[in-house]
């Protein structure tokens, strides 16, 4: 009886494994694009930030203080009814930062970023800045977005 020739092995169908992987990849990417803002700013409050050419502050863990066009104030995602609440919250967060790092000298050294809407009045920003300073923040920056076409 003649021996049957062994059938050549079919290449494994990698498509069935790649398809879900590509799906997950595109979903992850879409989520990343949509959440990029809140991922890097530690807040989900949307504010129309003014544009600038000069950028000084690199990405780091900061305390975001947002002021919306309507005049609402937020520290991280918490709405603040008045300036005194901002001072109290900043004080609390700066103390927490120093305790987490086991270094009392770090109190006030966590960067506080004021995210003001570009249409608000300068007086409002000064009031918030004053409240932040009263809360013991020693490193304060104004949030800006890099202007397109600049270095």
């Amino acid at each position, binding site marked *: 009886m003649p021996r049957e020739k062994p059938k050549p092995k079919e290449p494994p*169908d990698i*498509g*069935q494994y*790649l*398809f879900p992987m*590509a799906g997950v*990849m*595109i979903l992850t*990417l*879409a989520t*990343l*694009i949509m959440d*990029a*803002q809140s991922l*890097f*700013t530690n807040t989900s409050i949307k504010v129309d*930030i*003014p544009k*600038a*050419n*000069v*950028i*000084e*502050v*690199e*990405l780091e863990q900061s305390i975001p203080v947002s002021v919306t066009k309507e005049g609402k104030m937020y520290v991280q995602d918490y709405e603040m009814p008045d300036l005194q609440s901002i001072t109290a919250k900043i004080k609390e967060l700066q103390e927490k930062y120093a305790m987490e790092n086991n270094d009392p000298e770090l109190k*006030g*050294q966590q*960067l506080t*970023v004021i*995210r*003001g*809407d*570009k*249409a*608000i*009045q*300068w*007086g*409002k*920003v*000064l009031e918030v*800045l004053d409240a932040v*300073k009263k809360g013991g*923040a*020693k*490193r*304060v*920056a*104004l*949030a*800006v*977005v*890099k202007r*397109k076409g600049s270095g």
Partner: protein
Amino acid sequence: MPKRRKKKVEKREAPRPNLGPFSDMTTSLLIMFMLTIPFIVESGIFISRSLATKRRNVVTPKKKKSDIKVNIHICADGTVFLNEEPFDPNRLPDIIPKLLARSVKKQALLSADNDVIYEDVIQMIDLLKEKGASDVLIMKRKRSKCP
């Protein structure tokens, strides 16, 4: 009895998805995202640095004359005062570097009326920093010179 022919049941292959365009699109999206991230992500301009840096800047020889050569005030109506004198805002980009060159610490003083739009102040800070100011000191005036 006639032999019944066995029907050959053909195995239908499952359609293989064409992943080429799919991965192309994903890669393009990823590249676009990476390129646009600097324009999406917020950065900042320092208005108050750490105490250590400040102290370093504060150590100065005793001088009677102020080192600050650029003192700008923005009025709500758009008028700009440079060193207490009204000045054409369009000429600021030319004059600021010349004035800063005469200063040792290259600091600039900036104040604005409360009614000035925040974006205008940021643009002025940006201009000062772009033209070489090491620090922009923000000042609050009790009395404005504005008309």
